[in-house]
């Protein structure tokens, strides 16, 4: 589903943020991306949804080479990728329903159909009773669940989440992660960037570790190594 070959990303005047990254995430996988602050986790996710272009190397997303994608094609790629980023907030003047429907508006989904799908999605994240509330009236965990609903309402094949539990207390963190696991069970490929080691412990998923822009460990590979002996 996501493949990176010798990907390097550098900004002019700075040492590379990512250096020769190779990795493969299969369809339906759940992957944690971890590493210290500044390791390049966010940058790696941005490359996947074409918010940035790699300096060198190739990136395949769903079979398409996004390193060479035309600007006009980027929107269509993004319709297959749900994104949960800390800096992509909810719109304060719009109801929860409208915020989630935003994703469907872009596709030209008629209001009646869109409403139905949004309500179903809100039910999945446990917020159907808050559909008409304004985001600022919700708790942090609830807001984050709305963001996840917005990312998932058009059934993307990939979900990218950057520190989705960043400023939530431990109880809510578990709640959000459980939700992401459920989404993954329903078939969506999920990549979560986090530096919360307790989550890695608790969920026992594949973990890709970045340090100073390089992949320093990948549990999938070490398991493969262990298996092949």
């Amino acid at each position, binding site marked *: 589903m996501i493949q990176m070959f010798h990907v390097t990303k550098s900004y002019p005047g700075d040492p590379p943020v990512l250096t020769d990254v190779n990795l493969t995430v299969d369809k339906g996988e759940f992957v944690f991306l971890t590493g210290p602050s500044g390791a390049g986790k966010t940058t790696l996710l941005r490359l996947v949804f074409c918010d940035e272009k790699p300096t060198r190397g190739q990136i395949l997303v769903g079979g398409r080479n996004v390193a060479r994608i035309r600007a006009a094609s980027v929107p269509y790629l*993004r319709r297959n990728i749900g*994104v949960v980023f800390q800096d992509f907030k909810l*719109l304060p*003047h719009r109801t929860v329903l409208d915020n989630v429907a935003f*994703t469907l508006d*872009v596709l*030209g989904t008629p209001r009646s159909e869109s409403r139905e799908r949004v309500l179903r999605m809100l039910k999945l994240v446990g917020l159907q009773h808050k559909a008409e509330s304004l985001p600022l009236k919700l708790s942090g965990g609830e807001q984050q669940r709305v963001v996840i609903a917005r990312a998932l309402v058009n059934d993307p094949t990939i979900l990218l989440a950057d520190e989705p539990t960043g400023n939530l207390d431990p109880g809510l963190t578990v709640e959000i992660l459980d939700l992401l696991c459920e989404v993954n069970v329903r078939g969506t490929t999920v990549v979560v960037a986090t530096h919360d080691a307790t989550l890695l412990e608790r969920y026992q998923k594949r973990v890709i570790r970045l340090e100073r822009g390089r992949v320093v460990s990948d549990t999938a590979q070490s398991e493969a190594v262990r298996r092949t002996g």
Partner: protein
Amino acid sequence: MGGVAKAEVFWRSALQGIRHQPFPHVVAVLTLGIALFTLGLGRAGSLAVEHLLRSLGTEVQVTVWLRPGAPQADVDVLSAALRGRGFGVQLVTPRAAVERLTRELGPAADALRGLASEPLPPSLELQVPPAWRDPAALRQLADELQRQAPVTAVDWGEAAVERLGALARALRWGGLFAFAILLCATVVVVSATLQLAIYARREEVEIQKLVGATDRFVRAPFLIEGLLQGMAGAALALVGLAAVLHWVAPPLETLFAFLRVPSPAAALWGLRSTLELLGVGALLGLLGSFLAVSRALRA
């Protein structure tokens, strides 16, 4: 199918944008209103001036001086030819000319007494039909007449006609230039205010792009806002022009009645000018928003 749903989204987004951020829109509408009002007034003014110039042009008289004692038959042929081309022709005999001069001079006419019995040559006075009221045509006519046997000279107020023509041209170009500057300034202001509106909604734009909106989709609501601004500005200008028509035009008309300028009502009002003004407004609004959105999306 998606078209209707999208159109609905665009309109909702545009109206919400105006509601949450009314100030820049008000500024844009006022600017557009003032510009379009000026445009409307300017057009009425230029129509009045053109009409004035044209009616002054009617006063242009061509005098064809004839050789004293030229055969009546030749003069008749010449007159008939000119009448055939639409000119009014009046023969002024030497006697008539002297009488007219005497009348015009009044008491000073005594001075004429000692002169020969026919001091002035006979002439034809021509009323110029509209088709001939421009300097080039008149000059050509004068040259042509000059070559005819009974004609000694042709007088057609060359300088006056040319000066009027030049004045009309200068006014027209000056007006166009002023309009162009006015329109550019308006587009710049509208574009600047819409950039404010876009800035206020940058999060919305960012999220739209994140969930896969095309540039066209992001642009549409802002273009609608520009369009609405243009129409609102035009409506404002129409109200202003109606006020002018009602309170300012009548006294002006009485004041300048002697100029026989047509009522500005015709130029200001009417379905056609209303639609034109709305159209120009819509175009300016669209252009302004298009520039703003293009710049904002590139950034």
